[in-house]
């Protein structure tokens, strides 16, 4: 379980997270929605330890990000896929995927290579194994990013705006991969602006506003007319996200 309790974070006096309480159970897929600057990505970065909260606790199973040993274990169990891919440009795609399993988990290089080929095959990119990231399209890069995360055999997956820099066709490619992961029961936190992506894969929606959780409900509730009629601000967010 991922559990955030009263997490607060400010940058130069600007409050980004203002007392976040969030629990994600194994097998859940939680989408975090909200406007720009609402604090969505900061939540993800507090979980993977790229950002240290000012106060509050972040736990993943029994491990806390507050101590070095806990953080090391969290990073083994919880992998991140980034908005801008963040692939290692000087390594081939297969090397991007095998680097962390070999260096962090201590997997035998031969086994890591075989696993990486299996992953690439599963996302239809096996023939691009020995190419470099610069030789791929955005959608292909993001699928490599997902493979890199899955190569860690994570219990949890953090997906930070992973489709926001992709066109609709490439987004569809990535969503297809995410649906496969949902079917396998992967626990995921998805930060997104895109309602269709959230609607198609999440079980729960968390809506953030100004660093606070405004609502935390089941997906079907979130997108229901009755709920939206009661929550005008969310309705206007959805309308603007849909370009209405």
């Amino acid at each position: 379980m991922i559990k955030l309790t009263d997490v607060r974070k400010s940058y130069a006096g600007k409050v980004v997270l203002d007392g976040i309480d969030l629990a994600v159970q194994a097998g859940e897929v939680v989408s975090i929605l909200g406007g720009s600057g609402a604090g969505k990505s900061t939540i993800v970065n507090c979980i993977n330890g790229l950002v240290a909260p000012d106060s509050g606790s972040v736990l993943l199973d029994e491990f806390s990000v507050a101590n070095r040993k806990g953080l090391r274990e969290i990073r083994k169990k919880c992998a991140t896929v980034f908005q801008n891919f963040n692939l290692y440009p000087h390594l081939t795609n297969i090397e991007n995927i095998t680097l962390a399993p070999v260096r962090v988990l201590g997997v035998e290089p031969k086994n890591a290579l075989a696993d990486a080929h299996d992953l690439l095959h599963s996302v239809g990119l096996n023939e691009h194994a020995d190419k470099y990231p610069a030789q791929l399209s955005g959608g292909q890069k993001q699928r490599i990013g997902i493979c890199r995360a899955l190569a860690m055999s994570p219990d949890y997956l953090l997906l930070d705006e992973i489709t926001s820099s992709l066109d609709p066709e490439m987004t569809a490619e990535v969503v297809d991969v995410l649906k496969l992961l949902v079917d396998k029961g992967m626990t995921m936190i998805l930060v997104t602006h895109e309602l269709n992506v959230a609607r198609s894969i999440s079980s729960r929606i968390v809506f953030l506003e100004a660093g606070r959780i405004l609502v935390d409900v089941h997906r079907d509730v979130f997108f229901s007319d009755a709920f939206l009629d009661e929550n005008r601000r969310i309705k206007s967010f959805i309308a603007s996200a849909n370009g209405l």
Partner: protein
Amino acid sequence: MSFLSDIGPFIPALWDGFLTTAAVSAASILGSFVVGTALAVVATYGGRIAAMAATIYIEAFRNISFLVLIFFFYFGLPELGIFISAFWTGVLVLSLAVGAYVADAISAGLTNVQGGVKDAATAFGLTTAQRIRLLELPLALRVSLRPLGSLFVNLILTTSILSTITLNELTNAAKIIASTTFRPFEVYFLLLILYSILTYLCSVIVHRMHVRANRFLAT
């Protein structure tokens, strides 16, 4: 014809000088690269005191006359009982002095590494040492190769100063031949060509390394 017959007997001496210059250059390029890389890593990632020490070193060696350094190491250190041959004095001083410039070039490359690469490496649990060694340094070197090439060409040309501490490198050999044959124009012209061969070779090697190292950018 007369020039060739005058200079002919000295060709082996000139060749020896050429080989000495090539050897001192190669050893100093390697030495300055090691010194510069270590300084850049300490200056970029070291704690406050270590980074400050590295920065002071870089600034100090960039502001000291190379000739004075050479004299200090070759003529000054023996007073303390430290004797180093002219060859190794040259290698040591060139490594220390050019290392400061190399550190600057590599530091600029390290600063240039995208934050996303660091974030990904950190989030995936790589240690700081792994991150630097496997990702940031290789990426920085790819950016720094061209400026490093210019530094190494300058280093090769600077080896001529080692003639002042009796190292029988190319310039020293040429000086002896010119004063023996009384043909300074021809001898120093030949010297220009020989230095050009060395620096051109260095440029070609660095260019090829740059192209190979950046092949990942090809689409």
